[in-house]
């Protein structure tokens, strides 16, 4: 069933890509509806998997097909408390993104095919139980995103897409080498994740383990992205079409943090524990630096992009806290890892929504410059309310998804790295300042003459944003819905 969730959108992508007679607006709309329905199938399948999820702590609902047995490579997919929420969030975000209206530039079939392809690949990455498979999905996702930005972007799209591709591809080479090194150290040799976690092939390997760690770290840190490897992110976001931007922030960035937990923390916990403190320092730098640089931005998308750097910093901080050796603070570590994992989901929904909204603002006003707008609340109730709720969620207001995640990360960190936690707290004041300033400048105050006829969101967009907002509120009010699943992975993990 999980296999279908991965392969169906990929196969459907071929069908959609070959579709004819879609040059008319009507044809494009119909094809988009078909693609949306196809995209919803993995979501339904994952919700079924969710309902069947037992929370045993290990991988469940595993499906295996031998692929290259001599190398120990297999098509092996399954879920646990870490991958299930991420894969489900991914499927949901893709449904919303694919349904979202966008300027197809006359190539609707290609656009929708790429989105469907990317959906299958992204879900596959989170469900893969085999390192080789993981890497294939990792690399292929870059290609799909490259074309989405390059072909349907605006501004200097070609350059931004290129920078995104080359930068993240440069990160995937050390990642590949590290995967191979891990493979070569295993006995018997295997790419099977569960087996590698059991074997701990590099335990006590000293310098060799450090080098391998560094390879993984580079790959994941660039993708996450952590300061100072983040400069590919803002241009990619600014020039990408809204839905691609939402996927980039909501899904692709999570691949980096997911890799941190799935590979580094699970397969090399000793090396991770040794390096957890410097990692936490780097995370705090990402938090404060990302927030401050975001504060200085005048471009809406750049602003949101830098808050992603800030939020991914929270995630890494929670991971570092959970991965260090801290006797007696297991409860705090559990809190931190619960929070960090929930933050991945929450950030996907919140920032995904904010980027979709940015796209709608661009199609209406023609610019991302915040100062160009003002008083939009007068014209656009739905747009304003959606943006305000998501902005408050992003700045960590209780009752919305971001708070539960960030509070747990802070509370956990205070037990393990109290000084770093105090510094990291500055981040929530700065993000509050920048989001309230953005809301004030764009939506409140007097309405400039030129926006007197700005239309509010259409029905599809309102539904899409409304769905994300509803989920952000639901998780914020009843976080146990997601946290219980996450904790089935976290509790045994922290207990060792």
């Amino acid at each position, binding site marked *: 069933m999980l296999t279908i969730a991965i392969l169906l959108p990929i196969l459907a992508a071929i069908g959609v890509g070959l579709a004819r007679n879609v040059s008319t607006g009507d044809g494009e709309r119909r094809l988009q509806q078909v693609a949306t329905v196809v995209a919803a199938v993995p979501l339904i399948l994952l919700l079924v998997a969710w309902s069947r999820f037992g929370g045993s702590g290990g991988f469940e609902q595993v499906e295996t097909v031998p692929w290259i047995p001599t190398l120990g490579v297999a098509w092996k997919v399954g879920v646990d408390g870490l991958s299930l929420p991420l894969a489900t969030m991914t499927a949901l975000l893709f449904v919303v993104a694919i349904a979202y209206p966008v300027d197809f530039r006359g190539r609707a079939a290609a656009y929708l095919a790429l989105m469907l392809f990317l959906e299958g690949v992204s879900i596959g990455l989170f469900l893969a139980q085999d390192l080789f498979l993981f890497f294939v999905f990792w690399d292929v996702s870059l290609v799909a995103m490259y074309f989405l930005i390059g072909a349907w972007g605006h501004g200097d799209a070609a350059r931004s897409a290129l920078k995104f591709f080359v930068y993240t591809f440069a990160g995937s080479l050390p990642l590949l080498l590290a995967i191979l090194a891990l493979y070569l150290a295993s006995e018997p040799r295997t790419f099977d994740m569960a087996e590698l976690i059991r074997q701990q092939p590099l335990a006590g390997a000293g310098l060799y383990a450090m080098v391998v760690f560094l390879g993984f770290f580079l790959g994941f840190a660039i993708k996450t992205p952590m300061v100072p490897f983040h400069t590919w992110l803002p241009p990619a976001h600014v020039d990408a079409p809204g839905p691609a931007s939402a996927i980039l922030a909501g899904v692709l960035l999570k691949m980096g943090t997911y890799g941190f937990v799935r590979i580094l923390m699970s397969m090399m916990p000793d090396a991770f524990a040794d390096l957890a403190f410097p990692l936490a320092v780097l995370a705090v730098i990402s938090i404060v630096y990302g927030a401050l640089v975001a504060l200085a931005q005048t471009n809406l998308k750049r602003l949101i992009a830098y808050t992603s750097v800030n939020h991914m910093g929270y995630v890494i901080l929670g991971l570092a806290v959970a991965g260090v050796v801290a006797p007696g603070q297991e409860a705090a570590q559990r809190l931190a890892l619960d929070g960090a994992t929930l933050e991945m989901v929450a950030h996907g929904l919140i920032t995904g929504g904010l980027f979709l909204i940015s796209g709608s603002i661009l199609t209406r006003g023609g610019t991302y410059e915040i100062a160009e707008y003002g008083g939009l609340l007068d014209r656009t109730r739905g747009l304003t309310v959606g943006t305000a709720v998501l902005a408050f969620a992003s700045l960590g*207001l209780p009752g919305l998804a971001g708070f539960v995640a960030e509070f747990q990360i802070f509370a956990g960190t205070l037990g393990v790295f109290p000084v770093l936690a105090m510094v990291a707290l*500055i981040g929530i004041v700065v993000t509050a300042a920048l989001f309230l300033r953005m809301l004030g400048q764009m939506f409140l105050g007097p309405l400039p003459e030129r926006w007197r006829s700005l239309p509010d969101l259409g029905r599809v967009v309102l539904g899409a944003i409304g769905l994300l907002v509803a989920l952000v509120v639901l998780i914020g009010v009843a976080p146990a819905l997601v946290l219980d699943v996450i904790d089935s992975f976290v509790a045994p993990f922290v207990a060792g």
Partner: protein
Amino acid sequence: MILLAPLVPLLAAGAGWWLLPRRGSGWLLLVALVLTMGAAGWVVASSTRELTIGWGPVLSLSLGATAFGATMLLLIPAIAAPIIGYAYVTEAASRRSLVPLLLVFVATMELLVLSRDLLMLLVAWELVGAMSWLLIGHRWRDPGPPSAARITFITTRIGDLGLYAAAGVLFAATGSFRIDAIMALDRPAADLVAAGLLLAASAKSAQVPFAQWLFAAMAGPTPVSALLHSATLVAAGAYLLIVTSPLLGAVPWFLPAIALVGLVTAFAGGVVAALQSDAKPALAGSTSAQYGLMFIAIGAGAPAIAGAQLVIHAVFKSLLFLGAGVAMHESGSGRLAGMRLGRLRPVTALLSAIGLLALAAVPLTGGGWSKEAIVAAADERSVLVGTLVLASGALTAFYAMRLGLLMWGPGQRGTAREERPRLRADDLTMLPLAAGTVALSMLWLPGGAAWLAGADGRGFDLFSLLLSMGVIAAGALAAVALDRRGTLLAPAGDRGAELARTWLGFIPLFQSAVARESMRLADTLARFDARVVDAGVRLIWRLTRTLSRAIAYRDVVTVDGAVRAIGSGTLLTADLSRIADERGVDGTVEGTGRAVGRAGLESRRLQTGMSHEYLQLIAAGLAVALFILVIAR
């Protein structure tokens, strides 16, 4: 069932959104307000049981009414009801959004005083802050209110960090977020929690050095000011310390620090109130000072007295704000210079005078009782502090008298006057608050303070009472004397007015400077990010290109080696040179423009063949992977 207290106003707010535009909605609102008070009363009367809501595998929220929490639970809707009525009467145009928001404000505050753990408290605490953002920015079409709302939210959020830290430290030390777990803390965890709580409470209760956000909060409509100064937002800080200070006996500096903050604020706020030339900011200075008195009482180890002061202040301060709203409406501006409306609105003047007497802490008023109790409590700890509090009474009496004369004085003969004094709709909403203020005089009766747990059985000796009356009389007479000389409006001249306008220089020093320096730092970092961090990346790309070109030329001796290497060189070299080429091109494109022509040429070439080159690149990468695998086996 405990949840009824916040849920009823929340549901009323939702219903109000639909029903308020209709005719006869006033009666429905009255029912909603009565239900809100009833829900709170029912929660207080029915149970002291606790409610725990699971919020996840580790987190839970616990709610329940403590002794003082129950008082607050009743106080909040009791104060809010007349204020919301006033909003309904006076803000007819915007009542549809204002009234529901005020009801949600009440709901969040009810949630706050029901919190039994720091997580629930933090949730409610931040929601109260977010509501204040919505309410202060309510007149969002004007340019001012949105930024004023932002200043309020951010200043109080700086304080919220203390609450985050306190909650985290408490959990790390005890494995629980429960407020009563604070008692079990050892130092230094207890010190951290104490510091965090003091920071959070000081910012919320407008104490030095955060007090100046109260001026920004004036951008909200009058009912918003009335509510947030009395029973909500600002009250949350003092409430937090009243509840937690008895649990932190392990921290010797905690109570003295609270008292010090309160003492400084009592004088600073008093001076600001005395010199202000506008009505609402003068009341804001007074609020800050009055909460300073509460902090002194808490610091003197008498949280119950602070609680009494909170209740009494809530009643008379909301009354005074509503009166100020009437005065501003009648005179057309908030400036004290153009008021003296005693002849025009004699009933309002009378109702306000009741509030001013309580503010001036005249004996036999409720305000007088709590003031005497605070002096007595402070005296027990330190005669110096007790004396200073007594002396601050002169300042309070002075500005209360000043406000009374400037706002409600009879004015010159021939000014507009009411034909026949009558009770208008806005006066009617002030009536319950005035009645409440009068009723609180019962505190002076024997056993009159029995309902305030821990505050009863306190007597004042005659000598200190006489001394207090003398001090108050001196302050009030000074105001009268200045009025005779015609300098009451600006007792310390233009410089004094300027000083009050900038909150004794705190606004330029903290608010503006901190904001400006943060922005400058942010701008510097953003430039650093664009020029240095990204330039480093570009430099690496350029170096890689040069290096790999060199290798490529040595390996493949053809004229156009770098390009043809793909077909003929080893896979590894080709891979490197291809990546490097792309990176190099990117570097050139982004570069200074030295090689504009070449960059244009190459980027054009890129755009034509990009897709298949990338597929080649990936194929090459996979081939390398397989190559290594084969060798490794």
